[in-house]
């Protein structure tokens, strides 16, 4: 199938408005690559090179060796833990939420409301989100005081500088993203498949166990990986919440490079390379699963 597309696109090559016979068509991409060189490739090259030098300017692999020292392993562990927890929890909850408005047959207006709200919430990250949760679950937050006045006098709010606190906040943009991606997939499950299963005597459980979920599995896993990357790369939200007291990869990179207390830009670049590798792997897996998912859905 990919070949057919390629052939068609080869055929799509048009004669340029009378020019030389040489193939100059790549010239059309020069502006794009020039721009990328100035604002993407050069900074990236700087990152790669920087990670290979020590502060005195000598070539070294020490920066990569230093990744196993100090708070760095802990930062990677924290970031990965938070990302995994919010990806799985957000994935499951987002799936159930999407199922409630599609399979659960809630009134159609709720479906529209949910999808619009998810679009907003998945983009409502960063400083305002952190502040919203501080005003809600902090010591003097709205929900904290409300619960206290309802008799839960022991409730002191959620410690938003802890891992749990960050996870609770990240969930706000994690499960809406899951809803946005999984709702169309759930609607892509054909009615005929369910009817066929029922005609053969399958119960609702059997239908989901043997038909529905297997078809959706690549989409679900792929989206969870996307959620993982989403949480792993988040920075502003965590910074505003914790003020940098909780070591997370993005925050430590930032303080290594900008140097308040910790200051070793080259080590920061090596950490960034580690992060690029992790993010790269997750995007790669996502694309892979995405392709598999398209086999059944929207064909």
């Amino acid at each position, binding site marked *: 199938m990919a070949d057919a597309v390629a052939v068609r696109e080869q055929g*799509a090559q*048009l004669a340029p*408005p009378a020019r030389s016979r040489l193939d100059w*068509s*790549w010239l*059309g991409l020069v*502006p794009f690559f020039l721009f990328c060189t100035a*604002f*993407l490739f*050069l*900074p*990236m090259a*700087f*990152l790669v090179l920087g990670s290979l030098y020590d502060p005195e300017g000598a070539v070294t692999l020490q920066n990569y060796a230093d990744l196993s020292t100090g708070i760095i392993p802990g930062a990677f562990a924290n970031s990965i833990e938070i990302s995994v927890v919010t990806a799985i929890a957000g994935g499951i*909850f987002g799936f159930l*939420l999407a*199922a*409630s*408005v599609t399979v*659960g*047959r*809630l009134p159609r207006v709720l479906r529209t409301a*949910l999808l*619009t*709200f998810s*679009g907003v919430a998945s983009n409502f*990250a*960063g*400083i*305002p*989100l952190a502040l919203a949760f*501080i*005003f*809600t679950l902090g010591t003097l937050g709205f*929900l904290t005081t409300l619960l206290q006045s309802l008799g839960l006098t022991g409730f002191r709010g959620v410690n938003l500088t802890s891992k749990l606190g960050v996870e609770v906040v990240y*969930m*706000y943009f994690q*499960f809406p993203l899951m809803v*946005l991606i999984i709702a169309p997939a759930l609607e892509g499950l054909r009615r005929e498949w369910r*009817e066929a299963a*029922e*005609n053969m*005597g399958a119960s609702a459980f059997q239908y989901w166990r043997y038909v529905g979920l297997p078809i959706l599995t690549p989409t679900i896993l792929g989206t969870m990986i996307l959620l993982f*990357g*989403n949480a792993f*790369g988040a*920075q*502003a*939200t965590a*910074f505003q919440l914790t003020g940098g007291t909780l070591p997370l990869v*993005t925050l430590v*990179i*930032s303080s290594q*490079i*900008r140097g308040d207390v910790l200051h070793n830009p080259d080590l920061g*670049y090596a950490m960034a390379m580690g992060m*690029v590798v992790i*993010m*790269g792997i997750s*995007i790669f897996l996502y694309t892979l699963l995405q392709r598999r998912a398209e086999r059944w859905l929207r064909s």
Partner: protein
Amino acid sequence: MSGPSGGGSQAPFGPMGVMENEPGFNPDRVRVDAVARAARRERRAFGAWWAWLIFILGALYFIVPLLGVFFHSIRTRPDIFLAYRQVFADPAFLRGLGYSFTAGVITVVVSLLIIVPTAYWVRLRVPRLRPLVEFVTLMPFVIPPVVLAFGLIRIYSQGPVRLAATDTGLNVMLIGAYVVLSFPYMYRAVDTGLAAIDVRTLTEAAQSLGSGWTRILARVIFPNLRTSLLSGAFLTLAIVIGEYTIAQVLARTMAFAPYLSLLGRNQPYQPAAVSLISFGLTWLAMILIAFLGRGSRARVQVTGAR
């Protein structure tokens, strides 16, 4: 799935054919059950109980933090709108919003000017470079913004082009970084849009009528992509207005998010008011996207994390 259509009980996958042989099995009964189940599902238009439970939980998760911000923003007594009044009277607020909005608009324009011709050209003339271009547009997803911003600062504070030395130069770097950040969804939006129209026929038609490339792009391709371009544009705008890290690193502290971050540390009630306003702006951008996208197939836009 379709077995050889020999028919009847010989077909290996003919369900009734196989099942009829089982003792005590009544095919009519199964059919009645299935019909009854389907009817029950149809009747359940008001939704299953678990669906309501999940939905209400989700709605609470969405709404409670917003209530938290709202009630915090009106905690000022006796004048409950004091925080809002202070915010709107604060020149830093309008300056921040104005600065970030302008940056967003410029980013959108530059991004479109680069991405539309590129995506068009890749589709039409150099499809063999498509994987490369796609890969490059995806790179911003994997590069931490702080690293991108610092790379930019280090490179442009030495050598022939010292952008980091002047205010204008720093603004140029900020826009450049934002344009790069917008590539993943801009390229996808434009590429999807191009897939939906018949680029080749349109181009041929325009060429046979005597148009050059610039004219084809400006008068034929751009107008036909309006919907996807606009949704990409509003998404970019929403992201740029809320972006914190790069603006902070490039010392653009007058931008909206750094301003809000600082406010959050110094003021009791104003940050809540500004957060709510910012939520409203995101809401507005998303409603515009939904409005523009109605009729076309729903597409999920995935943004990088912040």
